[in-house]
């Protein structure tokens, strides 16, 4: 149990200096002051320890006691995570509200996982079976979507199960198995503890193979991310980072979603929470809440817990990965995490580098992104973590430290463009500045789903968009009139592509989600339009005739006209495009 280990000698915001009598370790959890506020040792200098405190430090004084049991700050990993919302150090916010009211007070000590609730446990191993760390010994249906695998903790030894409970209802505190390692016998419960900042081990990494289908056309068709990949979504305020994150949390085909609201708005958490209790996953027909875990440290919650929230999120993601799931982690926004790091570093009087950020910023970013990926787990299952991280550069300037360092560790970049956002072209993902290095990894998937045409379509359109960019420069100088018709057609096709395909409202009931099949049909429509029009132009058809044609108008509106249930009709329409254009020849 926690014993007195020292006294406070200085309080500077969330950072507290402690003179300690005995040997503390880095990352040991401490409880400071009479209210026992939770903190963590982040720096040691002889007999002085620095703790960052996860709660408001108002009224702490020099001389106040500090306690510790010399264990690292840990998470509880077990049934009860899904559908729940936690603060940055995994305290359940719903329960806190029930106990403490609408405003968050401090010095709270509530357990993370519900103690009373009984879960229906089904054993998957037998007594006397040999088990290793990570092995699945049973499962619990946590929600109708998620079978929560009960695993031997990665840091437990190997041995035999000297006992395993029968199928039945148990609470997380009950012993459901006993592990005999030869050196001793250990109780196994449905949950285990794991240090917040410690990466969970796996057997080995394997390359990503499948795209994370997000239902967002500009992403899936042009700048796809693979399951197990890392994306950064940088953009100035109001350019649409959070909406992208919400859209992906809603519609992407991950098994489990961990959503970390890191230093952002309280109302945005309310927004997802209320939506997710209503919205249904298009693939499973189940509530989205049944696959999602929320972590919330809003911008007015303690800054030290903001720094921790990212680790809490990724550790929970790793835990579900270890069960063999494809997990998507949304972190909105990693800049707030980096800024929390900067503030804490400043309070510890460390020497800063660029813009006040500590020298270890790139190392911390690298460590974090390194935890994404597709792996063979200790138990032989394949699982993945895809990280989708928003970045909030000051002044929208992508050369600032957080954006530029982040770029080194990700392979997919969705650059949000202020001008697109101003004209309400959403998602405001720039087709010029964005990129994805996952195209090769996942092209087989698209090939098998689209008769091998996707890659060709994609490069053709990216090429047209590049050309358009250059043509626009000319238009600005001398006007569009002087361009030959073939070049005018490029402008026309690109305009159509942007309006009909790239622009996708998150708030339109039909268009908020677009299946891979629909995306491809729409893609095909535009390519057909372009190729056929090129032919028409050569035969003397004028561009305004094409633009004013019925078929053009129909292409512009196909995204909302055809719902997911009407894709056969859409296909028929796409098949008729060339023929309809042909009519213009007369």
């Amino acid at each position, binding site marked *: 149990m926690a014993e007195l280990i020292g006294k406070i*000698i*200085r*309080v500077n915001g969330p950072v507290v*200096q402690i003179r300690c009598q005995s040997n503390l370790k880095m990352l040991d959890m401490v409880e400071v002051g009479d209210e026992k506020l939770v903190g963590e040792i982040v720096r040691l200098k002889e007999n002085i320890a620095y703790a960052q405190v996860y709660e408001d*430090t*108002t*009224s*702490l*004084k*020099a*001389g106040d006691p500090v306690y510790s049991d010399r264990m690292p700050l840990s998470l509880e990993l077990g049934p009860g995570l899904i559908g729940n*919302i936690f603060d940055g150090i995994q305290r359940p*916010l*719903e329960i*806190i*509200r029930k106990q403490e009211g*609408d*405003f*968050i*007070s401090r010095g709270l000590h509530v357990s993370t996982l519900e103690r009373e609730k009984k879960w229906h446990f089904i054993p998957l191993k037998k007594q006397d079976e040999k088990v290793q760390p990570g092995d699945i010994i049973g499962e619990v249906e946590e929600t109708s979507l998620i079978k929560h695998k009960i695993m031997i903790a990665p840091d437990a030894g190997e041995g035999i199960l000297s006992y395993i409970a029968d199928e039945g209802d148990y609470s997380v505190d009950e012993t459901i198995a006993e592990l005999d390692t030869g050196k001793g016998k250990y109780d196994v419960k449905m949950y285990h503890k794991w240090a917040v900042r410690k990466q969970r081990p796996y057997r080995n990494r394997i390359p990503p193979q499948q795209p994370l289908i997000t239902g967002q056309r500009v992403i899936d068709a042009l700048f796809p991310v693979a399951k197990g990949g890392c994306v950064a979504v940088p953009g100035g*305020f*109001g350019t649409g980072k959070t909406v992208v994150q919400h859209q992906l949390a809603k519609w992407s085909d991950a098994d489990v979603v961990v959503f970390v*609201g890191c*230093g952002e*708005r*309280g*109302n945005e958490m*309310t*927004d997802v*929470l209320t939506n997710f209790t209503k919205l249904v996953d298009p693939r499973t027909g189940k509530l989205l809440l049944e696959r999602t875990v929320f972590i919330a440290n*809003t*911008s*007015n*919650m303690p*800054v030290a817990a903001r720094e921790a929230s990212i680790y809490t999120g990724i550790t929970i993601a790793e835990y579900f990965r270890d069960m063999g799931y494809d997990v998507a982690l949304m972190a909105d926004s990693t800049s*707030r995490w980096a*800024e929390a790091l900067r*503030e804490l570093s400043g309070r510890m009087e460390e020497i*800063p580098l660029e*813009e*006040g950020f500590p020298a270890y910023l790139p190392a911390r970013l690298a460590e974090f992104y390194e935890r994404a990926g597709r792996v063979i787990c200790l138990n032989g299952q394949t699982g993945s973590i895809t990280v989708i991280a928003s970045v*909030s550069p*000051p*002044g*929208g*300037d992508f050369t600032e430290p957080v954006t530029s360092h982040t770029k080194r560790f990700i392979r997919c970049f969705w650059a949000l463009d202020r001008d697109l956002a*101003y*004209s*309400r072209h959403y998602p405001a993902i720039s087709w010029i500045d964005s990129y994805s290095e996952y195209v090769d990894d996942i092209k087989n998937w698209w090939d098998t789903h689209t008769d091998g045409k996707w890659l060709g379509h994609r490069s053709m359109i990216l090429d047209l968009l590049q050309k358009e960019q250059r043509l626009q420069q000319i*238009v*600005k*100088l001398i*006007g569009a009139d002087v361009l030959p018709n073939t070049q005018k057609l490029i402008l026309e096709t690109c305009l159509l592509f942007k*309006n009909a395909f790239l622009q996708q*409202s998150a*708030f339109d009931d039909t268009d908020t989600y677009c299946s891979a099949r629909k995306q491809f049909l729409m893609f095909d429509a535009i390519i057909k339009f372009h190729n056929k029009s090129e032919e028409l132009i050569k035969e003397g058809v004028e561009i305004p005739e094409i633009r*004013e044609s019925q078929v053009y*108008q129909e292409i*512009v*509106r196909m995204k909302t006209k055809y719902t997911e249930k009407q894709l056969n009709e859409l296909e028929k329409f796409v098949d008729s495009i060339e023929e309809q254009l042909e009519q213009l020849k007369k």
Partner: protein
Amino acid sequence: MNMHNLRQYTELEEIAGQLFVIKNIHNAGYNELVEITEENGTVRIGVTLEVGEGYAVVQVLGGTTGLSLKNCKIRFKGKPLEIGVSSDMLGRIFDGLGNPIDGMPKVVPEEIMNVNGTAMNPTARAYPENIIETGISTIDVMNTLVRGQKLPFFSGSGLPHDMIAAQIVRQARVKEEEFCIVFAGMGIKYDTARFFIKSFEETGVLDNVIMFLSLADSPSLTRLMTPRFALTAAEFLAFRKDMHVLVVLTDMSNYCEALRELSTMRGEIPARKGYPGYLYSDLASIYERAGRIKDKKGSITQIPILTMPNDDITHPVPDLTGYITEGQIVVDRELHARGIYPPISVLPSLSRLMKDNIGKGKTREDHPGLASQLFASYARTRDIKSIASIIGEEELSDLDHLYLKFGEEFETKFVNQGYNERRTLEESLELGWDIISILPEEELIRISQQQIKQRYRYKK
């Protein structure tokens, strides 16, 4: 009473600007109230910024002018800065630290509250709904204000942001008695304060207004507390007294400057332009004190006003504000110079809460499509204008000319309206249709065909 409440110290170690360090003390808590009594009996207050073994760093709120190192008594009160709040504060004017300055007696508090507030539990929040009809077309149609929202004005010096704010207060008045206004003035001139007082008076709402004024001539650090006093009063009225509170905070740039000053005094390492790295969190501790709570009737809507140095939207103050608030209304110098009032630049303006609160069953079915189309078409107009400025208007196509005409009418008829003109949402939407109909039907791709059929003005 706690032991340390009785402890008094008489010696200041060092005064630097509005900070001082006191040594040989014990039991000073972090972020706590300090009372400084001079020989002649004047009392100032301060807050501890840092505490350590035998010392504390104190920020003096009333300024340090005339304060001497000797001869003053210092008491650590063992509690954070607090304010006594009451419904009787309505109709009253206070200084930046909550002392009455309207010649009337002190208010008898109903409750004592910590001015720093605490974070609302995200699960306790109720998502803002119910739009506030301001009577201004560019806001109601294109950047809808919602009850419980924090929607700042990004303006510049000499621009009519005060007028627009006053117009909103006047026109947005809902016929509900629980409606009230909390006004916090930080570092503003007396004239500005008077302008608002007069406008509240004319509107007949003065009895429903609480004002906290920390004017330009008062010590700068006082400004750091003023919005906190105001928001504490607002929280009391909203969540204890079920009122709908509109909080006007002006000018947040002055607030941020005071914070920068404090940070510099403390020798902290700055992030951008001398502002401290924690400016974001500090601003969030103010702006996030807006919203609604489940099962409570009241709400806090915030309209912070800030002036952008050099009209630069990427300056840390507007930038970090934009990252916290739920959108922004940008006031534009060029439109102002052309005599357009209110000179609201719609493209960089945004209301993030608009999406969930307009459309069928909320405002009007055609609202989302029309708004989106106005944005898209107006953005296109801007592009065409810049091309025209190089190649000349004669070179433009017929369609481009229609866009220019649309842009012109949009600015002079839709954006432009009188200071006393209150357009209903219905009127604004219809006006929007009149203007968008300048463009050919095929151009209106953000509007559904059904809506076009129903509302487009010129049939082919």
